[in-house]
């Protein structure tokens, strides 16, 4: 029983982290049309920074791993630094890669950036310990007087708190005039510029906001699993999240949650329970094939996803209403009724 509880709580943590990733990518691509195929590197920089700033000095007797930013900072500073690192790296990458160019070229550049980053971190051992990565990251909530299994659930709850906060914040931003400006940029860049919107600044802003969320998700994940290495952040990981937001529904944050539940959690976990066929590793490889197929089937059958973007309804004399009220609106209404 405890094994199942451990398994499900682990899934819950991964689900929460993936929801954060989905929200970030949905803001960037679903709302702003920025194809961030390098998403995983912003998550990874968060993970590495959170790990390095919590692990303590990497020198002295017994030091078996090497990394920069070595420090032993108290909770929750490593997580804050992870968030900032994600945003800062996004700012730097965005500055040179988000100039006015076609969306497919942008996607290609991001993919290349992702591959280069992976090679650099793997080859440059003093940076984050090369291909071995960092291990032994201390548990951030270890001060709590709970057992190992209860800790699992407490940590899942901790991740969900961040998910809820980021969900509400990003949904609010997306429905603001800034969010509308992002959608205008997504739909017709030239026309958006012709109504006075600075496309470069908007792109950079949405890239940094997404980077902050990615850094946070990386920090939360590494503090849970305690280790991070290049094997954890291949560029293909980004495609899983992209598939999730396409399946769930671009431009709809509920769709993101549903997509993440269906693709990286249910869909990929079900395959773990299937009998092994062929040579060892064949099932793992087939997973990627099936993810690609799922993506294509979704584009063919339901291109706007299971829960498409909501249409805001304008009624004269009242503010814009969304076809179904957002979570923030519902929460506010319930609080008022208490």
């Amino acid at each position: 029983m405890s094994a199942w509880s451990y398994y499900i709580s682990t899934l819950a943590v991964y689900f929460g982290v993936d929801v954060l990733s989905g929200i970030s990518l949905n803001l960037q691509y679903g709302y702003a049309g920025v194809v961030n195929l390098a998403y995983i590197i912003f998550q990874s920089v968060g993970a590495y920074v959170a790990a390095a700033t919590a692990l303590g000095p990497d020198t002295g007797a017994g030091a078996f791993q090497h990394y920069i930013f070595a420090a032993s900072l108290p909770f929750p500073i490593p997580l804050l630094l992870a968030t900032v690192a994600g945003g800062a790296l996004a700012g730097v990458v965005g500055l040179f890669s988000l100039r006015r160019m076609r969306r497919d070229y942008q996607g290609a550049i991001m993919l290349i950036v992702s591959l280069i980053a992976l090679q650099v971190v793997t080859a440059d051992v003093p940076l984050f310990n090369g291909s071995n990565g960092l291990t032994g990251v201390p548990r951030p909530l270890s001060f709590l007087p709970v057992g190992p299994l209860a800790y699992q659930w407490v940590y899942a709850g901790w991740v969900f708190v961040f998910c809820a906060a980021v969900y509400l914040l990003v949904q609010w931003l997306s429905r603001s005039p800034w969010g509308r400006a992002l959608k205008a940029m997504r739909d017709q860049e030239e026309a958006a510029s012709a109504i006075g919107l600075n496309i470069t600044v908007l792109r950079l802003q949405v890239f940094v906001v997404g980077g902050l969320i990615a850094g946070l998700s990386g920090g939360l994940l590494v503090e849970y699993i305690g280790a991070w290495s290049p094997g954890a952040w291949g560029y293909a990981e980004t495609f899983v999240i992209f598939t999730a937001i396409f399946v769930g529904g671009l431009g709809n944050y509920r769709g993101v949650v549903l997509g993440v539940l269906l693709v990286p959690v249910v869909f990929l976990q079900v395959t773990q329970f299937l009998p092994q066929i062929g040579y060892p590793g064949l099932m793992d490889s087939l997973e990627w094939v099936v993810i690609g197929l799922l993506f294509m089937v979704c584009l063919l059958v339901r291109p706007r996803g299971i829960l498409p973007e909501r249409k805001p309804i304008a009624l004269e004399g009242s503010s814009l209403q969304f076809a179904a009220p957002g979570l923030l609106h519902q929460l506010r209404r319930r609080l008022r009724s208490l």
Partner: protein
Amino acid sequence: MATANPRAAVDIPHGAVGRAEASTTGAGQPVIAAQDLVVSYGGVVAVAGMSLEVRPGEAVGLIGPNGAGKSSFLAALAGQNRAARGRVLLDGKDVTRLPSYQRARLGLARTFQMTSEFANMTTFENLLTAGMGVQGAALSNVVLHHRSNRAHNREVERQAWAVLHRFDATHIANLYGRELSGGQRRLVEIMRCLMRSPKVLLLDEPMVGVAPHLVARLVSDLKSLRDDGIALVIVEHALEVVKEVSDRVNVMALGRLIASGTYEEVVSNDAVQAAYLG
């Protein structure tokens, strides 16, 4: 730093939608001027030294055969094309090196040859996005001043309804851009421009795709915009529309101005007839 309560980009009192703000240079001075403008794509010269002046409340038609360089010239005025030579003056200010979004902020609005509605946004959202103004849509303003922005947002919404009423378009307020007909898309583009209270409105073939029964309506609307003090430049192949709306007509061929004057003067011009008929 963002202002707490940014003013709308457009101020539309009592239904006088799209009234241009008074030009600082006065009614007699051109609000937009092109001086010896040259646009080239690689080695191909599309516009070879065009000059043009348009005053507030004046409508200038720009006609010419296909490939004459009309759209390239319009794009150079609006900032989508970079001029290889020459100057663009907007309200007396040299904007030649400014990108399109900065020219838009100075009061220049345009429609495109291919309709450019925001396809996955409703008509109402299209108008709100244009009407929010630069400060209103700024991330810092949204985050730091979201409470004080409410009055501004409501004002922009009120203006959007005023524009929709003016064009009898309230029935398309909640339709996505992709759900609109060709004529309705043109209308959305024009309404979107008006939300910015432009001084200059550049229209690139505004009647393409518009149903015949709507053309007369749009012509009447364009004339009333001109009467409101907006300077109009209209590139259009439907010559009856140009005749109806324009105070003056310029004719381009092979990137150059070949004739200028009233509609009657230019259509009887030998060079114009040669350019059209070959």
